[in-house]
């Protein structure tokens, strides 16, 4: 267990970022902490300063701003279903939330925290002792990836289910760091490098998540996991189609970042699916094999398109 030396619980975003700038070399922001505290227990996170954001009320607000809904990053996953705009316009997000961890964890875990969930690997999410015994992997400053035997790339899995849903709905996030506040499409913060999976300043925190209102997303969410609860994803797939016919495929759990394929309803869906399978850099770092997960991408996406078509058919039928 890492013995943190410092713990802060600031009451404002400004104070949090100020503290972060001061302790920049060795800090970890803490939202719900359901991911961070386990990583600290296993010592895959050895930062010695914790800045606990849960006292910042301003980050728990949700409001409609012009053409988008802005969700505070500290809204608990479990509380999202209580926000009528989300149920009405973005049920996909609620489906994803329901697939995260367990009900008790969702009462503490936050949306912002889930987006920043650390990438996972069977050989990395282990105690310090275990990793020493196994031989430290690339992600803990070792020389070799234990999943692939390679020495260059870490393919730790992208673990956030809500991010997959949000990227599917073209969400942006508002980030604040010691230099500036800026808004960026969510998918752009993910690097695809398993060692350093997020392109964010050390002092950066997500203030809010913005979802575009009125895009009329139709969507299908699927998650491959061994048990029906508790599990991190072995494959999360989202397909969305918006009003103007943009098709977006987003995959989680099969690459160090969300795998995104964009097309239109006019495109050959088989081609889109092929593209998604090709893009996913899956390695054997999960309870399911690489090949099975790869095969399941096709199965899940085909099924998703079928379900969307069926829903279309039904709604057309209802309309007529």
């Amino acid at each position: 267990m890492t013995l943190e030396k410092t713990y802060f619980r600031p009451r404002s975003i400004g104070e949090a970022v100020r503290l972060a700038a001061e302790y920049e070399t060795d800090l970890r922001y803490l939202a719900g902490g359901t991911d961070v505290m386990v990583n600290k227990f296993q010592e895959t996170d050895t930062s010695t300063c914790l800045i606990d954001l849960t006292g910042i009320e301003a980050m728990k607000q949700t409001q409609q701003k012009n053409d988008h809904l802005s969700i505070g990053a500290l809204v608990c996953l479990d509380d999202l279903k209580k926000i009528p705009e989300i149920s009405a316009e973005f049920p996909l997000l609620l489906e994803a939330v329901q697939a995260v961890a367990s009900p008790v964890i969702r009462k503490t875990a936050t949306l912002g925290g889930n987006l920043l969930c650390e990438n996972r690997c069977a050989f990395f999410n282990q105690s310090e002792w275990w990793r020493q015994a196994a031989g430290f992997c690339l992600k803990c400053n070792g020389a070799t990836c234990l999943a692939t035997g390679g020495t260059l790339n870490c393919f730790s899995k992208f673990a956030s289910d809500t991010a997959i849903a949000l990227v599917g709905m073209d969400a942006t996030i508002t980030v604040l760091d010691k230099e500036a506040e800026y808004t960026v499409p969510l998918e752009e913060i993910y690097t695809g490098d398993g060692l350093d999976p997020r392109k964010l300043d050390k002092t950066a925190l997500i203030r809010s998540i913005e979802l575009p209102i009125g895009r009329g997303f139709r969507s299908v969410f699927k998650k491959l996991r061994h048990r029906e609860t508790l599990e991190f994803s072995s494959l999360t797939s989202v397909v969305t189609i918006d009003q103007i016919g943009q098709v977006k495929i987003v995959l989680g759990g099969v690459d160090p970042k969300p795998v995104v394929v964009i097309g239109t309803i006019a495109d050959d869906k088989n081609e889109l699916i092929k593209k998604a399978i090709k893009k996913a850099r899956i390695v054997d770092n999960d309870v399911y094999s690489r090949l099975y997960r790869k095969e399941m991408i096709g199965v899940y996406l085909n099924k998703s398109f079928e379900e969307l078509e069926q829903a279309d058919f039904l709604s057309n039928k209802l309309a007529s």
Partner: protein
Amino acid sequence: MERIKFKINGKQYELLVEPHEMLSAVIRDKIGLTGTKIGCEQGTCGACTVLADGKPVLSCIAPALRFDNAEITTIEALAQNGALHALQQKFVDKGAIQCGFCTPGMVMTALDFVNHHPNPSTTEIKEALSGNLCRCTGYKKIIEAVAEYAAEAHRPIRFSKPNKSHLHTSVGVSRPYIEAGRKASGAAEYADDIHVKNALHCKFLRSIYPHAKIDRIDVSEALKLEGVRYIATGAELPVKFGVLPISQDETAMAIEKTRYVGEIVAAVAADTEAIAAAACRLIKVEYRPIRPFLEIDDSLRDIGDSEKIHDYGKFNNNVHKKAELRFGDQQQGLREADVTAKMTFKFEGVNHGFTEPHAATAFWDENGLTIYTATQVPHYLHRALAKTMEVPLSRVRVIKPTVGGGFGGKSDPFPHEVIIAHLARKTGRAVRVRLSREEVFLTNHGRHPSVMTVEMGISKDGIIQVLDADIVIDGGAYGSFGVVTSYYNGVLLQAPYKLDNFGFRTYRVYTNKPQCGAMRGHGAVNSRFAVESLIDELAYQINMDPCELRMKNFLDSNTLTVGQYRITSNGSRESLQKVMEQSEWKKRIGKLPAGRGLGVGCGFFISGSALPIIWNELPQSVVHLKLDFDGRVLITSGASDIGQGSDTMLAIIVAEVLGIDPEKIFVLAADTLLTPVDLGSYSSRVTFMAGNAAKDAAENLKKEILRVVSAHFETPESELNLANNRVFSNDKSADLSWLEAVDRLTAGRGAVSVSGKYISPKLGGDFKGAGAGLSPSYSFGACVAEVEVNPDTGQVKVLQVWGAHDCGKAINPMAVEGQLEGSWHMGIGQVLSEQMRYFNGLLINNNFLDYKIPTTLDTPDIHTNIIETIDPEGPFGAKECGEGALHPVIPAVTNAIYNAVGVRITKLPINAEEVLRQMKAIKVLEATQELSLA
């Protein structure tokens, strides 16, 4: 340290807390509210759930400092003025509590849920509780308790009175465990809840190599750390131990070499756990790795110039034990059989997954060594500690506190118990230890990974003609119960079906992995799976209903098996009949929609081993009763209640014989100083053996009472009755209340003590190996499962399980149901998701996130049936119910998969990938056949 102020259960606290301290640690260790449990340290099991400002929080992953000014509610706050909260009471009344370790977290989660969902559906309850793991109950009674509480919660009375309807009941009537209230309220003390004054904390340094010579251990830097009181290494504890006298192959710490990754190499006693852990990191060990043996095949082969894991056996390999028995000539039998089938099966290792991690505290005083520890077998630990500490047996006292589940995983003497005894002696202080969940998994002793080829022959009309099994089991680094396991894999195939021609050979090999041992259903679970799969296969081959085939072959009651097991009561047929009816087998088999199927499995198990592990002439169980002036009967018994309800069973039996309320009985159990020897909670022996001893003792006490009452009233003893808390003659000329009778008995004499015992009858043949699996009685059972297989993914969902188990007589039906439901749930885990996965000898899934015990949502609807056959020798006809039920459920599920999609499962756990692959192969085959037909 930072100052924190918060209210816990309405009381204001102001404390100094470290930034890295979790709320659970503060609640338990600083405030002393030990009702909140720590089962996994990673927010997965839910045992640590508390409410913070009214919201459920997993306190083991919540930094304490976050809760400045918060109001925390723990399980201890729910009961008020001596009355349990209605939800707690519901858990008690419904039998939703077995070991009780998950109960506090489960109750807190359920309470919050019902507060927000006053009229929940069963599905909603399952969903809400899906982050709280229970290993004992199969969740069924927990879900029922929550549902009933929710249904009644609108009533204005928040605190309900305990349900007293059970007061005048005894054998055969459901009754909550006598300690259930204590478990529900958080008051029950488990090993880690017991705080002996001024105790040091122990942490271990564990090997990072599977097989390595230890050249040097340097503890000098670690010793310099302030607060470190003692560091022990292997050489200080050279005496070998093990649960079986023939496998004394383990030392408390590795001495010259390590044999698995995770073996203890050094132990630190320090002022705090953190200091002890820090000191472990400063210990330098120079290892010289040698060739590890990680797979069964490697250990079977001649190893050339490499070093064996143990200097054991005359061959140059790592075979630990070969067990072989043959009745008849199997090869000839197979040649002569009408139809034969042969299959090879592979099983991954599985772990008990009890929710309470191992924990213990040891100290020495004028009485020698005392240890509080989470154990199933105080007696064997007593012997092992005397041996390793090199003190007389009379200088060791083992006390079993409340134990949070065992399932065989707490039935060996363990290194951590020996080490803290040693550290306590060296430091003159009490020393405590609690293992992390990762350490619990490394300690293992779980079910052996196995490979077996089994061949069976049957006649065209479905009579089993021959069975031959060739088995290899992977024992890991040490012996444990392995010699018994080796035999059980074979011998426990000679029932429940008639077999004249039967043989097996089992090899147990050592490998450089954590050792395997006894786990629920010991030894026979995997080989039973093989046989039940083969029977299913053969039934399809001869086009006979698999249930019908089984019915045709069951052994009768009062018969001998081929290996001379004495079968007395036998409810095989009734069990199978029951699940066939309930599942509407005949109506539905073969007529389910695509992808759905029904499967069946049967099984049997011993009701206690007729032979003790350590040969001696002591009875297998002794129970003492003391009756004093207050009318209370004190039962003292060495039997270990680990959540299965044995304390309650003893009370019910004694109450029945004496005709008094169980409330007049106090059970003092499992303290080797105070209680007479019982061999422990293993081999499903407690109800049969300790129950019989308790019955014997109670009858002896009854005789004493009858004697004085008869003399006083000059009424023949045969005219007297003990019932309804009275002693009375048939004509009522004598009619005394219980207390009046006690007054007569104790007059001029004082407290009366009597003793009772159980000694198994002499059983079995006189050939070598005849003793394995001998039992005074056997349980029998059957399961039908219904599954759904996803055609696109190969994923299997178990929809329903119908189970029936012949337990002879259900002394406490609610407890029996709980054992059955828990067994079926555990079997579903083994078939669907549980396995110990290794990477170069290193256990990958050493936590409750990655070791996949089924949650509420993964557990099917379970239909429970108790079959009673009234065993002639069991106490009131009772026999075992805690292990045997596990056997049939696993093949029932896989046979249902075969029925659904034609895929024969030969590897456990089921792998969706493999199911899918085989489904595709079948499609290709069918297409080719169609083509060739066309």
